[in-house]
């Protein structure tokens, strides 16, 4: 598995907090690093940024490259239970355990201070990782996340492929559902969504469901619908500074 790491100048003299970025469908570990424009802000706030790949590659599983929204580049940050995926496609464990252990052992990061964010499928990944692990992440944010995968086409396709047909197992990886039973410590969630995002209009993202659930459970969310923006990295690049500052507030507190 490949991953990218950004070390700020501050890391030369001491341990820094870690900010994990999860990319969306079809991305590799390179997209965020090259296109998002995060460097200045991360440097200013002294944050180490880690961007893993979106799925294992070259596993030689039949059908892994058939579609762009399932298999290679579409790990959906779940631990698959179905054959032939369950051996290799364990993105949830990778992101929440394996990768942090690796990073903590080899890079100047403070293991106690960690936050997570992502885009689209990665937004979904960030939200579920934070909701399933109360207190592990100091803050979470997302760009155009898939908020309610059990109800959208992408989610249905991926979950049935990775998790089988028992929908009760899907809910464990659905942010909207997880929120409803979230017991844990205070989370402050920032979500930016482009208003002209095609996938929003196609019903793939379903942020309203998530917001309603959070309102109900009194989970603090600030959701910004940005006029004129789409799903692309231009959108991410425009607001990345706000997100990094959001995380810095908690990581550098």
């Amino acid at each position, binding site marked *: 598995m490949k991953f990218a790491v950004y070390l700020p100048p501050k890391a030369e003299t001491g341990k820094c907090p870690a900010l994990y970025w999860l990319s969306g469908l079809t991305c590799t570990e390179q997209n965020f690093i090259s296109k998002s424009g995060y460097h200045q802000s991360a440097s200013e706030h002294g944050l180490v940024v880690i961007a893993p790949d979106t799925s294992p590659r070259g596993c030689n599983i039949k059908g892994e490259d058939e579609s762009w929204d399932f298999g290679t580049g579409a790990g959906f940050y779940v631990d698959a239970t179905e054959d032939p995926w369950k051996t290799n496609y364990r993105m949830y464990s990778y992101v929440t355990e394996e990768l942090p252990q690796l990073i903590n052992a080899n890079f100047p990061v403070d293991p106690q201070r960690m936050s997570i964010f992502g885009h689209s499928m990665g937004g979904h990944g960030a939200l579920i990782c934070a909701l399933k692990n109360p207190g592990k992440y100091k803050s979470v944010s997302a760009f155009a996340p898939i908020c309610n995968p059990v109800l959208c086409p992408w989610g249905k396709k991926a979950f049935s492929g990775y998790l089988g047909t028992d929908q009760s197992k899907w809910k464990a990886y659905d942010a909207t559902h997880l929120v409803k039973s979230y017991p844990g410590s205070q989370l402050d969630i920032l979500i930016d969504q482009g*208003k002209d995002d095609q996938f929003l209009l196609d019903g793939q993202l379903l942020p309203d469901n998530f917001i309603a659930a959070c309102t109900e459970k*009194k*989970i*603090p*969310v600030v959701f910004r619908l940005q006029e004129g923006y789409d799903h692309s990295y231009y959108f991410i690049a425009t607001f990345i500074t706000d997100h990094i500052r959001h995380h810095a507030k908690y990581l550098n*507190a």
Partner: protein
Amino acid sequence: MEEESGEELGLDRSTPKDFHFYHMDLYDSEDRLHLFPEENTRMRKVVQAEMANESRGAGDGKAQRDLQEEVDELVHLYGLEDDHELGDEFVDENIPRTGVSEYPPYMMKRRDPAREQRDWRLSGEAAEAEDLGFGGWGSAGQCQDLREAYRYTHGRASEEYECYVIPEEEDEEEAADVFCVTCKTPIRAFQKVFDEHKEHEVIPLNEALESAKDEIHKNMYKLEKQIIEMENFANHLEEVFITVEENFGKQEQNFESHYNEILETLAQKYEEKIQALGEKKKEKLEALYGQLVSCGENLDTCKELMETIEEMCHEEKVDFIKDAVAMADRLGKFLKTKTDVEISAQPEFEDQTLDFSDVEQLMGSINTIPATGSSVRVCWSLYSDDTVESYQLSYRPVQDSSPGTDQAEFTVTVKETYCSVTNLVPNTQYEFWVTAHNRAGPSPSSERAVYMTAPSPPIIKTKEIRSCEEAVLICWESGNLNPVDSYTVELTQAESPEASGVTESVVGIPTCESVVQLQPGRSYIIYVRALNMGGPSVRSEPATVHTIGSYFRLNKDTCHPWLTISEDGLTAVRSERRTPARELSPSDTHFTRCVAVMGNLIPVRGHHYWEVEVDEHLDYRVGVAFADVRKQEDLGANCLSWCMRHTFASSRHKYEFLHNRTTPDIRITVPPKKIGILLDYEHSKLSFFNVDLSQHLYTFSCQLHEFVHPCFSLEKPGCLKVHNGISMPKHVTFY
């Protein structure tokens, strides 16, 4: 190329007396060469123009002078024409400079030399049209120098040539028309191709000129500003000068009277002491004399007795016995009486301790300014040796206008030559006059002296104090019916008490308010004094200021009639009541449509942070607005206000961030109960936070060209409470 005056060149024309020669070497020859590599060319051009003049023959001298004036005028017009913001000072200052502009008179070169003189008279517009260098050159002297130089370099007598002497080398007509940015020199276009300028960046001359002019304009503008600043400062200094003089006068007068008083008291004591000593002496002498007398008497008696006894011893026996018995009796009696041989009065004088305590007191109080708000110390002196038994001091307030109502006159009788008059009205002028009295009657009255009582202390309006971390705005009431000269603000830090505390004073404040710079995170105690000719008043009652966060109160004057503001100025309440639907008449001061109120934030830039406590179900708007925002409109409905708006309807919370009627689309899942607002003038931002969650809600980028005030509006009955004097929480500092 050395400069020489006209006379030295042996020219026939006499130099006009009022002619001002500008030497070519006003600027270093280095500079000249650097800027104008085409020195020769210029000289030639200049010379040819010069010759054009000469060819006109008679009236040359006059032509020269006209030329000079015209050139100056031209230079002035051209050089400064587009700088309308400049005052006359600049015009005057700059003329000599541009008069010796280093730029050659290219414009002349362009035109037919024969028409040159006339062209110059066309003045500025023509020059601008040419769009080349500054017109003008200095003087006839310069022309002459150049001509000399020309002669020298070309070895030909200029007189031989008429107007059109143009040496072969100089066959191109264009003057420099591009500007080499690297060398910072104007060059001709084709020169760009040559080695020197090959690699250099070149821009059209026009552009270079424009940017050079812009530079200069900018600097001129700065200079003008500085002039204004300096003038203001100079004025202020003058005022301070005068105050120093006045204060000196008061100090002098005060010291003199005190000192005189001390001297008088000392003199008095001297007299008393001498007198007392004299009496003592008399006493002693009298006592001693008495003793002496009785001693003498005693002696006489003794002698007499002795003689009698001696006589007795010569008598007959019978007589002797008779006398002896009588004598024995007498002797017995006499000797019984004690003779006092103790000296009745000691020769030494005891040391007497003189009581100087009153003098000490006088000396101690020598520095206190005599006039207070209600008393004045008046002193006078007598210029003759007449005996005076007492003085009568009369006084009354000075009449301003109508002498009809005679003010009451008061009189005090004293023996000294000074008197402290009390029970006077503060901040009032009184006139005093004195008459001396003795047995023969009163003297004519002295001239009238006018003293002014110091003013009453002002009263600080503590409810209207506004502060932030770096400053405080205090305002007060004068405390006096009549105007005073100025006010002084005194402040000390509260933590360090009088002993070590330094008192800072701000003097010469003309109005009843002042903005004072302070250090953040401290507590200060502030006093105000009023000042007039009679001196300063006593300190006002103190007010305390804490420089933590920003502190302001809601301004009742801006309040919509349906809102009530609490006594402490921090809570706004809109009551449940049937409010009539009619429109309120528009007003400039208070809100008439939006049920809102503004706070009085201190007009100081920097950061300001405050919090508002609201009920979850309350419909409100909170934000900031310029003081002149239209009060007939809702907050956020125009470009002079920014606010966060919450409406609660059908169990749904809706949040908007309004400015100019537009809002971004934002959903907030947890309704804030306490909203933190950060106003950052430096970065032109207004941010909103959920204080309890340390959650950032939204940030406006706003153009804050003037000061803004916090504003609050209640769209439904309810109340909101302002909390201020809070220092910015850490999470807010990220924004």
